[in-house]
């Protein structure tokens, strides 16, 4: 039974991926990719990665899908011109052969993996109580591999700087994205009033529960960012000016606090990002609290794109 379910999921997944890749129309491809992302979350559940499944559904399928949907609408006009550059049959056959060769090589590697598999789980379990958190994944993210998480937070901010740098000179410091106007009595405006309070509670719960259960700041930040964007799309709020002082403080507070806590570890525990024994849990909470606004702002602003217009006071 388990194998049957697995086989059906795999067949659907591969068929969707192929369909997305070869579809004639870019919009169809994006729609396929969103469904593919949701199916992928199911794969993560089957692979016992509930935290990964939550992240995939929220970011991999949700945010990436919305981003691509926004782009495909604005790229409509360019599709016909590039369609003429479609690869000829010769190149397609060569590409298929190369793809098959890569797949076959990877499959050979998978089938010759060592048994029993190497694992770090026996190292994580006895050391987890020292961190004060119960969810081993949160423990890895913020204690054992904290440096990766720090660099990731910095990469996100750098990514946003990269997006903003693409603004035309005249729009620098202005507001990103479009100013949406929706019927103030319409269903969108209604949902944008009703859903955010629920979304904020769910988001903060995921944040808090992440210490001991599946969840955490990434999944939480995605939900909070989505609520903010819903308010923007319903025309109830505007995107912030990108030269706002508070906004920029919010963008860097997470990495700054993270680095500060890391530096505190040098005199207090003898290494960068080491936590003194009894202080581990409060310090981890402090980092997570500081990272939350950074993640919410970066995720939402990455979706909004570069600054495009001026308007309104700061």
């Amino acid at each position, binding site marked *: 039974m388990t194998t049957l379910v697995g086989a059906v999921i795999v067949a659907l997944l591969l068929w969707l991926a192929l369909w997305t890749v070869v579809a004639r129309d870019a919009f169809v491809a994006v729609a396929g990719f969103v469904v593919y992302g949701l199916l992928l979350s199911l794969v993560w559940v089957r692979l016992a990665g509930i935290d990964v499944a939550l*992240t995939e559904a929220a970011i991999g399928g949700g945010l990436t899908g919305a981003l691509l949907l926004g*782009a495909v609408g604005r790229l409509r006009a360019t599709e016909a011109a590039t369609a003429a550059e479609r690869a000829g049959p010769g190149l397609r056959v060569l590409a298929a052969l190369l793809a098959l060769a890569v797949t076959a090589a*990877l499959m050979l590697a998978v089938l010759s993996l060592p048994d029993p598999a190497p694992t770090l*789980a026996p190292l994580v379990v006895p050391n987890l109580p020292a961190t004060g958190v119960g969810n081993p994944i949160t423990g*890895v993210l913020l204690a054992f591999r904290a440096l990766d998480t720090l660099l990731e937070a910095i990469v996100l901010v750098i990514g946003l700087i990269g997006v903003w740098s693409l603004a035309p000179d005249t729009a620098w410091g202005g507001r990103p994205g479009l100013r949406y106007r929706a019927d103030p009595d319409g269903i969108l405006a209604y949902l944008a009033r009703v859903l955010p309070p629920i979304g904020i509670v769910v988001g903060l719960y995921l944040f808090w529960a992440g210490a001991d259960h599946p969840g955490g700041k990434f999944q939480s930040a995605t939900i909070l960012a989505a609520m903010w964007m819903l308010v923007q799309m319903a025309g109830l709020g505007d995107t912030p000016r990108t030269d706002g002082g508070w906004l920029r403080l919010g963008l860097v507070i997470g990495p700054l606090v993270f680095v500060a806590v890391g530096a505190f570890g040098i005199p207090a525990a003898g290494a960068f990002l080491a936590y003194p024994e009894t202080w581990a849990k409060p310090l981890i909470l402090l980092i997570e609290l500081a990272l939350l606004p950074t993640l919410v702002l970066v995720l939402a602003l990455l979706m909004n794109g570069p600054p495009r217009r001026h308007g309104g006071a700061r």
Partner: protein
Amino acid sequence: MSVETLYALAACALVGIGLYGMIVQPHPLRKLIAFNIMGTGVFVLFGALAKRGAAAGLVADPVPQALLITAIVVAFAATAVTVALLLRLVESTDTASLADEPPAGR
């Protein structure tokens, strides 16, 4: 066949499918989608390896799983930067073509 081997083999096929799409699709947005599929193939393979590493009472090795969360978030950021670059390219050249020679008539 165990569940992790099944998904690991499927992940290999996903990498191949994404690679094929990246080569044959001329539009940059389609290349980006294909690249994302290739990336998810790598993620699923890594996730299957994490499942193989189940030990010490845990259902999977938490270290690769935590790195996967980081990877998914970074992949989203990279996709957002690419989309912004692509939209800017179209804004300033009126074409999304990546060919060395601009299409005739432009």
